[in-house]
Structure formats: C-alpha cells, structure tokens
C-alpha cells in the first residue's frame, strides 16, 4: 500500500518535471532564436544543467521523503525556470550566477532533507532560532552602519569578502519557525478570554508580552534597516499565524489597527516610507526622478498586451545595455515577464504561485500536529504575501517595496532561503500525507 502510494506520488512529480523541462527547452530556444548573434547554443547547456539539478532534487525526494507532495517541486522548478530564462535574456552573466545559486539552493534543499530526520526537532530550538534570527538582523544593521553598505536606501545587505547576503531572507525562515513553535505552545493561553477589556475577552498580558517583544523587536530592526517591504511581510505573516493559532479575528483587527497607526506615523516620520507611498499614489509626479522606475515598469507591462512581445523580443535594454526599468532582473522581473509573455504569461505565473499556496495550505490542513500546521501555513503565507507585495507594488495595487519575487528574481540569498523553505514544506507534507493515509 505504502509502496504503491510512494511510487505514484513521485511518478506524478516526474511527469510534471518533464512538463517543466519542455517549458525550459522552449524558453531557452525562443531566446536563442530571438537573439541569434549574441547567444550561442551554449545556452542549451544551461537548460541541461538546470534540468539535471531538478532531477537530483527529485531523486533526493524519492529517497528521503517518498510521500511528499508531488506538485511543490515541479511548481518551484517552473518558477525558477521562468526566472532563469528571463534573467538569461537580460544578462547572460547574471544567469550563470543565478545557476550557481540554484545549485547551492538545491544543495541546501538536500542537506535539509538529509539532516532533518524529523523536522519537528526544530520545535525544541525555538528560542535559539528566534534569538538567532534577531541577532542576524541586528548584525546586518551594525555591519551596514560600520561598512556603509546601503543599497537603494536599505540596510539589508551584509558583505563577507566578495560575497553579499541578505540575511533577512533567512531570518524570515527563523522567525516563522519560532512563531510556529511558540504559538503551538501558547495557543490555548492566547485564545483564552481571562481578561475583559472594553467588553472583549483577552488573555493575560504576560502571555502576550514575549510575543509582542519578539515581533516588536523584529519590526524595530527592520525600521532601522529602512526596508519597508520586509517589515510589511513580517507583520502580515505574524498576524496570519496568530489568527490561525487562536482563530480569533480580534488579533487581526487589532493588528491591522496598530499597523494602520504605525503606517501613518512612519509616513509622517520616515522619509523613505513617505517617498514610497507618494510614488505609489502619484507615480507621474516625478517621472524622471523618484517615480521613474515605477512608471517605466508600467510602460513595459502595458507594452506586453495580452500575449506579450515574445521571449527575447521585448525592448527592455537600451543600446548601452542599460535596462529600461532599473532593477529589472531583481525586484522588477515581473515587469520583464509581463512585457515578453503578456497577460497570458503572467496569469500562468500567478496561477503557479496560487498552486503552491494551495498545496502549502493543504499540507497545513492535513498535518496532524499544531507545530506542523503552523509551520506549513507560515511558510506558505510568507511566500504568498511576498508575491502580493512585490507584484502589487509594481502594478500599483500596493505601495512599492523592494523585495524579491520568490524563486524568480535574480538573487542568491532569496533563492537559497526559498529552497530551504521548500524542503521544510516537502518534509511536512511527507509526514502529513503518510499519516493521513494511515
């Protein structure tokens, strides 16, 4: 029984991976055809290397987590494929770097599978993880002030030797793990109504304080980092997990009220935040200055139309090789994809994200214990919310934030952290699906 289920899950995964392989082949070939002269058939080695890496991840799942959800890996693989093709089309050197980061990411994916016989041991290290995450964020800020590493106004980078990292991407994982463990432990206490404040039942303050402290500390650090997007992301994930743990909407309502107040205050007090909000509301006010990136991204998206210009056929670089939209390979890669694949392409892309969100939350609902549920849901919500914030910022559904499009954007830290998150999700789903069947 188990052996049959095992094979069928992994075989479905393999089938889906073959579909991804087809997409990758078509993507690279299309760029190759559109840009003959600059791009050589060498590009096909990228495709081969990429598929090889996905094959290794697939084999690792076959051995370590035979029952893991069969959709997660191919879906993530598809996103990486879209990203790497688009990055390759914009800047072949960066595609090579991204391929190396992908190899490291897949390596971490396998390490997590191999090292964590049972991911639930992580629950025991909750305070260690929480404190380590905060310490990482603090170290980033201190090193940024010490070395003057400020990128686009944000202090989110740390430089070691020639390499740069965004530790916030890993701190995000650590804090989700911490919150899952902490909320699992305290959820009854937090859901209790021992005290009555203004007619509302609330738990005793002492149960709330460590949580408030931890999250407040994280948010304070992020304000110091000047990284609006990550702060929004953390706060959103925190509220959603609190809601899941307690099923009490009062936390969401209260949290949103605190958030609204905080947003208003930072709008008035923090120039970086005020600028982001102003660009969001009036992007055309300073077209050649602060609004340039936002406005040019909209032009690129608009030009894509329903079906796009075709991969490699969009007008995304100037004759000097400068991108028409600044940061088009990283934060703004959605604009490039929307330009070249059109509404049809980004609809497919968003559906893939929806698929991952659906599978992640399905895993959460299948999982047997509170920690697994909260962890799976937290990781999934973090991914979904991040997509909403960055894409929403580009299409003006939300203020612009400088965060990556998970699995797609160019950037090592983000890619590696997402593969680690994926490994955790696979591990949870493996256990949950086996238990559900038993």
């Amino acid at each position: 029984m188990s052996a049959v289920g095992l094979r069928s899950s992994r075989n479905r995964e393999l089938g889906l991976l073959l579909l991804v392989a087809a997409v990758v082949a078509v993507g690279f070939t299309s760029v190759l055809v559109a840009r003959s002269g600059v791009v050589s058939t060498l590009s096909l080695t990228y495709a081969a290397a990429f598929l090889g890496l996905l094959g290794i991840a697939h084999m690792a799942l076959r051995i370590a987590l035979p029952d893991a959800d069969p959709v997660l890996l191919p879906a993530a693989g598809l996103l990486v494929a879209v990203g790497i093709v688009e990055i390759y089309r914009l800047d072949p050197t960066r595609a090579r770097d991204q391929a190396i980061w992908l190899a490291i990411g897949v390596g971490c994916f396998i390490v997590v599978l191999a090292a964590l016989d049972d991911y639930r041991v992580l629950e025991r290290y909750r305070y260690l993880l929480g404190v380590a995450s905060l310490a990482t964020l603090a170290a980033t800020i201190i090193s940024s002030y010490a070395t003057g590493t400020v990128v686009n106004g944000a202090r989110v980078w740390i430089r070691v030797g020639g390499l740069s990292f965004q530790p916030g991407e890993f701190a995000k994982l650590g804090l989700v793990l911490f919150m899952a463990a902490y909320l699992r432990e305290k959820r009854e206490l937090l859901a209790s109504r021992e005290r009555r404040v203004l007619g509302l039942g609330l738990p005793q303050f002492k149960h709330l304080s460590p949580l408030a402290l931890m999250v407040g500390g994280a948010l304070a650090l992020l304000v110091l980092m000047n990284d609006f997007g990550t702060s929004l992301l953390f706060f959103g994930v925190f509220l959603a997990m609190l809601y899941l743990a307690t099923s009490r909407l009062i936390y969401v309502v209260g949290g949103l009220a605190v958030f609204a107040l905080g947003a208003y205050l930072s709008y008035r007090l923090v120039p970086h935040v005020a600028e982001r909000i102003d660009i969001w509301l009036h992007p055309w006010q300073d077209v050649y200055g602060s609004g340039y990136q936002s406005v040019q991204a909209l032009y690129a998206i608009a030009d894509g139309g329903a079906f796009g210009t075709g991969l490699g056929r969009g007008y995304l670089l100037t004759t000097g090789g400068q991108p028409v939209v600044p940061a088009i390979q990283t934060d703004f890669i959605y604009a490039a994809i929307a330009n070249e694949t059109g509404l049809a392409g980004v609809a497919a892309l968003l559906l893939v994200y929806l698929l991952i969100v659906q599978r992640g939350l399905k895993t959460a609902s299948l999982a047997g214990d509170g920690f697994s549920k909260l962890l799976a849901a937290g990781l999934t919500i973090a991914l979904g919310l991040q997509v909403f914030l960055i894409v929403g910022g580009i299409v003006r559904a939300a203020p612009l934030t400088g965060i990556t499009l998970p699995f797609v954007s160019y950037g090592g830290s983000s890619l590696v952290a997402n593969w680690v998150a994926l490994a955790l999700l696979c591990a949870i789903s493996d256990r949950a699906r086996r238990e559900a069947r038993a």
Partner: protein
Amino acid sequence: MNRAIGRVYAVLASGLVLLLGFTAYWQLWAEPSLAARRDNAHQVVQQLSIRRGLIIAADGTKLAINHAVTTADGRHVYERRYPTNKMFAHVVGYSSATDGRAGVERSANDYLIGAHTDLGDALANQLHSLAGGEIHGDDVQLSLVPAAQRKAMSDLAATGKAGAVFAVEPSTGRVLVSASWPSFNPNRAVQGSLPRRGSALVNRATQGLYPPGSSIKPVIAALALESGRADANTQFTDPGYFEEYGRKITNDNGERFSGRFDLTFALTHSINSVFARLGSEICGGRARCPALTGALQKLGFFSIPPLDYPTDQLAASGTVRSGTNKLLSPNAPIDPARTAIGQANLVATPMQMAMVAAAIGNGGVVMRPTLVDSVRSPSGALRYGRHSEPLNRAFSEQTAAAVTGMMEHVVDEGTGRAAQIPGVQIAGKTGTAQTGRNGQLDAWFIAFAPAQNPQVAVAVVVERTNQYGGQAAAPIARDVMQAVLNAAS
C-alpha cells in the same frame, strides 16, 4: 484550525486574483494611453529599431544619419549620428534613447519613423515588420542653407558672446538659417551625456527673448505712415529728448540733431526723441494701444510662431510683466513711447524680428515660416511638399516700399553701414537695447537683401556686449546674407 486555514487561503487567493486584475488593467485598458507618453523610455528604445529617415539640408548636406548598433541583448538597432556636430544642434535637435527628442527630430518624428502614412502604408509597414523586416522612416528635407548657417555660427563664436541668427526667405517663409550660440554636440545626447540643463541647450534663435531696441523702429515708421501722422515730406525737429510719465527718453549719448529733417533721416540716425513721440501719438497718449499692439500681432507677436518645430522650443514675443518673461495680453497697458524705441517691457525673439524684416521686404505680407521643404519615402515617393502660405498683411504695399527705402538709407549712410555688400542694395536697421545690467547691451541688426527683390531676411542678436548693433550685429548679418546670396547663385 482548518477553517481558519481555509479563510487564509481565500484571502491569499483573492490577493493573487487582484494582482491579475491590476496587470490586466495596465496591459489591456491603459496600454494605448501609456504608449503615447513622451517619458516612455520603452517606446523610445522600441523606436530605435526603426531606421529613421535622414534629415537633409537644402544643398543635400546630411544633418542626421543612422548608425547601426547591436545592443547588449543582441538586437539590431539604429543610433542617430549628427555629422555636422554643433552646427545645427538646436534646430535639428536629437533623438536619443536616454535623453528623448528635441528639435526637428521631435516635430517631424512621425515622418522620420514612417508613421505619418495613410492606412494602406501603415498596414504594409506592420506586415513588413511582422515578417521580421526593418521599418524605414521617410527622409525629411529642410530649407536650411548650410553655408549661411556655418557663417552665422562662426561669426557668433568669434564675438565671444552668446547670440543668435535667424534668416528666412521673405516671399515664402522658408527658414534659411537658425543659429544659436553657444551650442552643444547632439551626438552627446545620443550617448546620454548631455548636461540636464544649461544655457547652451536653449535655442536663442526661437526662444531667446530680448528687448529689440531700435530695431523695432521700422514698424513705428510704418505705423506713422499708415496712420497719416507722417509722410515723406513731414518735417521733424529734435529737442534731444521726449518726456513721458515725467521721465525723459533721451537720444544715445545725449546727442541732439539740429535743424529740420524728415522721417528717413530720423530712421537713418535712429533718433529716439522722434520715435518716442510718434509712439505716443500713434497711441493717442493712452496706455491701452490697439493701434500698436494690433500691428505687432499681425506681425506675429503675442503668439507662438506657427513654425513646424516643437512648441516648447518656441517663445512668443510681445510685452511681458516687468522683470519676468511672462507674456501679457495685447490689451494690457503699455508704455507707448518706450515701446516705440523697443524698450520698456517689449521683448522679441530673433525669429520674430526676422519675420518683421521679411514682412517689410515682402511688400507687407507675413508668410508662414516653415523648416520642412519636403518629405520623401525611401523609394523617393513624395509624402509631403511645402506650399507658401500668407499669414497676414501687416502693412500696405506702399508703406512697405517706403519703409524699405528708409532702411536702405540706414545701410547706405546711417548706423548700419557695416552691413553693406558691394553690388547689392541692403535694407536694414540697427538696434541697441539696454539690458538693465550696467553697461551691457543687446546688439541687434535686422535686414533683407537685395532690398527691392529680397531673397533673404535676417535678424542677428549679440547678447550682453558693450558694442552697438551697427558694430556687433551688422557685420554678421552682412556675412549671412552674402552666404545665402552666393549659395543661391
């Protein structure tokens, strides 16, 4: 917890659907209005794949050509090159992926990218481009005369001052010279290394507003004749000044001409007291003076000239609010006597003053000025051909002829002797305007030649000099007119 998970899923899913909705809005509904915007860098890059038409001067000199480049992402595109460098920078302008477009490159862009065609041609172009073919724009032929333009630029450079020259063909309105100094190299705009702002970027010929000084006096002379206030025999005397609003308007250097003389003598020697009085009389002593401002309007003052050139690179001449360049309405009160000697708040572009000279030379009729002579497709088919269009009659033919005679005297024996060309009768008028800065003058000269059948009318201004119009500007006007006449013969 599973019910809560379901709710969270619903929220996240609607968020993603919202993103799709917004993207669809930009891609399907907002697309046309966004594509039309000038700050759209995407469109500028896209248009680089079009082989723009050439811009050609009257003698066939190529002013803008294409240079094939391959972009970092392997696209074959064309960059503009301007072989004449600084020589035609302001008038031809530039087309750059980073700095946008200016000058004729902007005003004639539709032709240059081959978009200014009928539906059939547009469809053929579209099919051609879908088949992977290049789009070739149409070639634009200008009326500019390179020999005269070069002379204007080198003469302006030699003054060591900023300045401008504008010349037109009086009978047609074809623009022959549009020179502005200091200039810039438009090839730098293509490389994106043009300074964001700077005095060199301003087209002084079409945007520079200067008090015209005495160069406006031919207009006053014409109005005096037309109103019957003076004729060929009217005698004037010079008290040395004219008093208005309690302050004296004096002649230059407190000079005073003795005896009785006619209007021709007054213009030949640019006698302020006479023209200030005439201005006051024409206006009946009133500050609201339709007789004067109406005549200026007919000459083109008080509105942006209808040149086939970007509107934001053209300025309207007229009376301005003190200390600003803010144009007032023609109905606003003026200071008639001081306006009549080209001071007070009257300002004009070199282009406008060239149109004044051209109108007098053309029997009183103002012609619509044009830069583009013709547009041809790459295969040689005529897409557009200019035709001459009268805009207004500013003066009667007799008045124009009389004023022409007076202006001949200015060059033959008056303040404009430096503009003489052996064997050619020139009609001209000097102007020397106080700039309000201590000792600094704007030197003007307007002229046309040959006086009786003019082929060229010109206006020259040299900024902030310490010389009179007859010294600083007249020789430049002479050289430019000579160059046009030589090129024509």
